[in-house]
């Protein structure tokens, strides 16, 4: 953003002394734009998710408000605004009122480092990844506050479940990111994107077998971090009524609601930035992309498209999979994910050293892994194609013949 502040100053011919104010102004505008983008994205995603879910369940989904019901989220939002902001009699009032804000802030603050394109980024912190992990921890605090202050056992259970889950899964999350950091040598998100190339075989997913594993590790942990199915225990509808937000109504519930869907974009964006090449256009050097507005736009579109694909996958998962039990969830984290992450880091270091010695090996691995990834994708597509076909005649279980 500093670049833009500089440009604006030159363009307006403002004296050097006002640089701070101009910067503040530019950041303010950027924050507004980013927030609006986030809110818009969250809203539209909530509508989109309902439509996708409906399609999967042979329904239609919201289609009355606006073209194809696209404004449904606006209606729900306005309705929540108008609803009574209810605080239970025995609740811890200040804490209850405060709780939605950390959740909201925790999610929104990620937009500081999340890039939109080559130069459009809040602040390219050199510890971007660490910042991301740190700031999302605020969400845990908010959820725990909400769970505790409502003074209801269901919310408490939901809050505690959520805290346990999110704190645990932060470890494999961080580990899987470290695996990527080792070859790239930077913690900055923009740096990571610059390190990657535009073409798929230059992406960090296919960098080495370890990053390939780390991609899945990260994706799963991020789902757990974001309380999405199959890890949506904190708000398990059939078990815990509505989890930590059981007692919330009106606007405060809206904050939780927004945070949840904004989180979708955040997951998608991080996955794209770290693993899937971010805003890089195939065949274009990043320096060139930083200069031209057109290429920036194309980069942004690419970035958004990749994020949307990830968001889509998350939505599919949500509406297909059942959820795990809390002990299975914890077991999965501590017994499998953490060790895998640890081993991956060590192996990743060795592999990086090896590739530095033999560059050809790196290229071969990338292409090999790309083929593997393609195969996995093809299997997924086959499965999807199956869903569109008519009913199968082959029994799923052999003993059912």
């Amino acid at each position, binding site marked *: 953003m500093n670049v833009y502040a500089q440009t604006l100053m030159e363009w307006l011919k403002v004296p050097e002394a006002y640089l701070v104010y101009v910067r503040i102004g530019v950041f303010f505008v950027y924050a507004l734009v980013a927030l609006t983008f986030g809110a818009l994205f969250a809203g539209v995603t909530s509508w989109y998710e309902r439509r996708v*879910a409906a399609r*999967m*369940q*042979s*329904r239609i989904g919201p289609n009355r408000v606006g073209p194809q019901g696209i404004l449904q989220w606006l209606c729900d939002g306005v309705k929540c605004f108008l609803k009574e902001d209810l605080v239970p009699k025995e609740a811890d009032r200040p804490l209850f009122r405060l709780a939605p804000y950390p959740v909201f802030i925790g999610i929104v603050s990620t937009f500081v480092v999340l890039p939109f394109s080559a130069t459009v980024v809040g602040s390219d912190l050199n510890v971007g990844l660490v910042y991301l992990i740190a700031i999302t921890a605020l969400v845990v605090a908010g959820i725990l506050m909400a769970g505790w202050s409502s003074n209801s*056992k*269901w919310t408490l*259970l939901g809050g505690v479940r959520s805290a346990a889950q999110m704190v645990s899964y932060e470890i494999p999350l961080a580990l899987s990111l470290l695996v990527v950091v080792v070859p790239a040598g930077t913690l900055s998100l923009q740096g990571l994107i610059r390190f990657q190339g535009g073409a798929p075989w230059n992406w960090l997913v296919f960098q080495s077998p370890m990053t390939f594993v780390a991609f899945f590790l990260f994706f799963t942990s991020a789902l757990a971090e974001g309380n999405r*199915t*199959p890890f*949506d*225990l904190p708000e*398990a*509808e*059939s*078990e*815990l*009524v509505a989890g930590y937000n059981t007692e919330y109504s009106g606007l405060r519930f809206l904050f939780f609601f927004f945070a949840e869907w904004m989180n979708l974009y955040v997951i998608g964006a991080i996955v794209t930035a770290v693993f899937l090449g971010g805003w890089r256009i195939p065949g274009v050097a990043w320096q060139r992309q930083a200069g031209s507005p057109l290429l920036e736009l194309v980069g942004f579109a690419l970035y958004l498209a990749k994020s949307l694909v990830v968001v889509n996958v998350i939505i599919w998962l949500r*509406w*297909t*999979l*059942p*959820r*795990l*039990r*809390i*002990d*299975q969830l914890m077991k999965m984290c501590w017994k499998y994910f953490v060790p895998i992450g640890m081993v991956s880091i060590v192996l990743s270091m060795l592999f990086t050293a090896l590739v530095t010695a033999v560059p050809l090996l790196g290229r071969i691995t990338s292409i090999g892994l790309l083929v593997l990834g393609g195969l996995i994708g093809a299997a997924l597509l086959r499965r999807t194609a199956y869903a569109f076909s*008519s*009913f*199968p*005649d*082959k*029994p*799923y*279980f052999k*003993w*059912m013949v």
Partner: protein
Amino acid sequence: MNLQDIIVEAEGGQQMLLNMGPQHPSTHGVIRFLVKADGEVISEAIPVVGYLHRGIEKIAESMPYAGFIPFTDRVDYLAAMFCNHAFVTAVEKLLGLEVPRRAEYLRVIADEMNRIASHLIAVGSMAMDIGAYTPFLHGIREREIINDLTEMLCGGRLTYNYMRIGGVSRDLPDGFLKRLKGFLDRFDPGFINEFNRLIGGNEILVRRCAHVATIGADEAMDMGLAGPNLRASGVSWDLRRDMPYSCYPDLEFDVPVGRGFRGSLGDSYDRFMVRILEMSQSARLLRQAIEKLPDGDIQAKAPRKIKPPAGESYGAVESARGELGFYLVSDGGETPLRLKIRTGSFSAMWAIHRKSAGCMLADLVVLLASADIVAPEIDR
């Protein structure tokens, strides 16, 4: 010890007392649990039933026999046809009435259609309670077709009031059998295979259900379980085969029994799977019944005013939730002296009370769903 004492005692101790329901998304209908839990692990889940106690048995004592049939529909709204069937069986036994063959076949067709519809909800809502919402709606989609068929048959979607004492209310409408055949072709094996691929073989579901709330065969018999719950525990007992009624002796079918498909014998996954297998057996029965459907009357000559002689009878059918029996005591008047309805959910609920200790909170939901509880059947 009354409920208040239980609450006071638990609040004073180390355990957390959770009040689950009556308005709770996973309790099927209105059932309330007082869950004594230590964190996530349940030490006891005390069911508080009766939120739907409508006094059907008392109403029966003031209703004429024929006029009571609509009430039996409301005993089990998911499988209302069986309640019709059991009640008319009880009255017919008392009257010594011979039912025409065609009526018996129509009853069986209606029953088995209803069994499929009921099991669809059972397995679907089990998947929903575990967190997968989609299979439930797929079940609902198929159920809508059955609802259409029953609507053709008797004009009702849920509460049928189809059977009469000595027969059934109306014959098959035109085109019914064709549509039923169409549905069966679609349903078995197509839908069942799809359902299994979607959720039945899902690793998470298996992990959630296998080894959860295992009920052994002896225990199941002792607790008076019936129907799919009993069969899942490895006891091959089916009233359709073992105490035959209606035209079941003419038809061929297997009785699926639990055998620890993916876990131990009698666990929640067995109960889930036995229901899926039973659906395909029902489809098989339906196909045969369509083949063999005889011509003839649909209504025996029953007196206009039904006044059975004094005596007792027990009409039992194998409902979707197990043995459904109407124990009827008549004193020779126009209304019964006493009607006792024995239902499968009642004993299943007792089993849940017994088996809940040591489960986790999420397991209780699975147990509840796998036992396929319907609240009004417990409370009546």
